């Protein structure tokens, strides 16, 4: 008799205030993604285009929080994922988008949109409102694990995921741990 098929872990991923670089890095695990797919199936993710996060074992967040929609998505992930991982500098500490934090938001919007003739600040109700400051995700929800790096290497992401799949506390060696 065949052994019952192992239940796959459900994984969701998304990019908030990030550049998708960390997702590109996730794809840098190359053909190991086939091994990964033996153990996990993807819920919401740029890979599947599912729009909302369902019940998941692992949620992986790229990017920090720069607008109200980011906060809603993050909360949806936290509610649905048993384990939440911050992937990359922006999720871990705000990263590049947070470099606007020393300037006032109105000043930035004026500079960007009104410095040219007839420029106006976009105000469509469809647009999510920007937050006053950009925040790393652990300042809003509980985060279980962090993978620093801008972006973290495919090897670092692979190490954390395989450690978790093996039921171990994820650890990055000197070669894999970096903040840049």
């Amino acid at each position, binding site marked *: 008799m065949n052994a019952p098929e192992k239940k796959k872990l459900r994984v969701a991923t998304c990019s908030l205030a990030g550049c998708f670089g960390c997702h590109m890095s996730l794809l840098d695990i190359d053909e190991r993604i086939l091994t990964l797919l033996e153990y996990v199936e993807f819920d919401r993710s740029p890979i599947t285009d599912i729009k909302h996060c369902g019940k998941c074992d692992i949620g992986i967040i790229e990017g920090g929080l720069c607008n109200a929609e980011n906060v809603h998505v993050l909360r949806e992930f936290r509610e649905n994922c048993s384990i939440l991982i911050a992937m990359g500098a922006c999720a*871990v*500490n705000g*990263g590049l988008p*947070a*470099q606007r*934090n020393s300037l006032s938001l109105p000043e930035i919007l004026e500079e960007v949109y009104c410095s040219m003739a007839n420029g106006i600040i976009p105000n469509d109700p469809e647009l999510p409102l920007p937050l006053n400051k950009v925040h790393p995700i652990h300042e809003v929800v509980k985060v279980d694990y962090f993978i620093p790096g801008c972006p973290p290497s495919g090897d670092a992401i692979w190490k954390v995921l395989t450690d978790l799949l093996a039921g171990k506390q994820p650890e990055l060696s*000197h070669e894999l*741990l*970096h*903040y840049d």
Partner: protein
Amino acid sequence: MAKTFTIDGKVVPFEEGETIIQAARKAGVYIPHLCYHPEFKPHGSCKLCTVKVNGWQTASCTMRAGENMVVESNTDELNSERRTLTQMLFVEGNHFCPACERSGECKLQATAYDLGMMTPHFDHFFPNRAVDASHPDWMLDFNRCILCSLCVRASRDVDSKNVFALTERGIKTKLIVNSKSGKLGDTNFSVTDKAAQVCPVGVHIRKRRGFAVPIGERRYDKAPISDLSHEAAVEVK
């Protein structure tokens, strides 16, 4: 017979008057530190070098070694407290490593790696600190200052120029430049000063020479800061 004490069970000889960290370095034992530099009088402010001496916590850069002391350093308890200190240093300033010229050569970053800091953990202050680019050859990015006072000590004790000072107290402490305008360009600071060589982080930056060493070949890319080769090459002159 030389006098000795132990660090994590290892017997370490010392000479009268030496601090624990000095004796440890000579014996090849790494104790994390940020404000300590072998060429300067200790400042004892960062507390990264905290060890337990006969069960009591103390800064190993200011505590003199004593016969038969039992010192603990590389323990989970002390390393976790050290990690918390590095996390506080990260959130108090603006440390955007991907855009920092000192990344890969920075002692704060390397120490945090060595302590396994995966997250800054605390809420970020995101302070607003202007950069001083008034000097033709030198830039000061105060966003990265950890107030170790090494440039202050170097400028005062070696260069005899007193270009830098720490002012105010507690969480308000900050580094200032001693000139009427408060600008570096209005001092007699020179790139050949000792003060230009001691910053453990990325405040003191030589203009027009950023990112000279490729990623992978920078000092702490190759070996962690706890590797004794750095101790020999970088600091003990």
